[in-house]
């Protein structure tokens, strides 16, 4: 019997992630590892982790990585890629990291067309710090810093990072995917692959925005979080290729 689906070697054999049950950070990290292996570029990879739950796996991914100050992953990646163009440099960031504190760094790197890849995990909340409002929190969604739920008049509306970056000329590739169904997982993996290929081909800035879940801070069981993604998140954050040049 042949193994037709193997655990990626980029995750350390004997380790269990610190992610909560059903958290899709795990899914995405697995996909990244699979793509690196399939493309045979694990030994070129340099991952810049944002600060947030994404960092929970930093000690058991098997490729080079560093942690950027909260929000600054795109700036750190800019330095890494320009200093060592042979490397495949990608950031892995949450919505608080990429779209709130790091908004300036994110948009500026995209505008310069840095030849890096951004994996942007949009779970609509601050996971690691315990459920504060993110720029992508849905209207009406409760957060510990928005106890009555996000209110448009007070907090404004959810931010659409793909669409914002699509206003810039430089970015090569912007796609929004999710991991809530098998089909979407496959699409996410393809998108990650494409984003990495773009970098190897010198096409410049690519971003995959992945709509995921935070069952813990959404206050939902893992399975229910899938429904929430389908019914609430995706209508606000429609999936698809926004830019591909």
């Amino acid at each position: 019997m042949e193994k037709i689906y193997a655990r990626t070697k980029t995750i350390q054999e004997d380790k269990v992630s610190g992610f909560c049950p059903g958290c899709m950070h795990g899914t995405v990290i697995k996909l990244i590892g699979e793509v690196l292996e399939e493309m045979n570029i694990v030994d070129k990879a340099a991952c810049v982790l944002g600060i947030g739950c994404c960092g929970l796996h930093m000690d058991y991914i098997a490729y080079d990585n560093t942690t950027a100050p909260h929000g600054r992953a795109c700036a750190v990646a800019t330095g890494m890629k320009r200093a060592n163009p042979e490397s495949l440099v990608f950031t892995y960031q949450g919505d608080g990291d990429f779209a709130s504190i790091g908004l300036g760094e994110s948009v500026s790197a995209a505008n310069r067309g840095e030849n890096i890849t951004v994996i942007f995990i949009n779970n609509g909340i601050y996971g690691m710090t315990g459920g504060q409002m993110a720029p992508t929190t849905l209207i009406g969604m409760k957060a510990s810093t928005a106890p009555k739920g996000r209110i448009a008049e007070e907090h404004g509306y959810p931010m659409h990072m793909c669409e914002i970056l699509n206003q810039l000329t430089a970015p090569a590739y912007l796609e929004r995917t999710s991991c809530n169904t098998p089909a979407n997982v496959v699409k996410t993996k393809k998108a990650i692959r494409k984003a990495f290929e773009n970098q190897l081909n010198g096409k410049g800035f690519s971003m995959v925005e992945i709509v995921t879940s935070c069952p813990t801070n959404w206050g939902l069981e893992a399975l229910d979080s899938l429904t929430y993604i389908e019914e609430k998140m995706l209508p606000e954050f429609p999936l698809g290729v926004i830019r591909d040049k």
Partner: protein
Amino acid sequence: MARVEIRSESCKSCQYCVKFCPKGVLAIGDKVNSKGYEYSVPVNMEACIACCICARMCPDAAIEVYK
């Protein structure tokens, strides 16, 4: 002939594999791993068609598939 292997220590009982398996191969068992999670187990292995959906959906890379 197909088979899945689940690392019970990695499983966190999210049930994604259970939900998405098209053949009802998997279920949450009643045993608990050292982290306190009731892990997923194959209850109908014969039905497995090695589609890998369970493995693909598992956030914790707990599933491997053989054919």
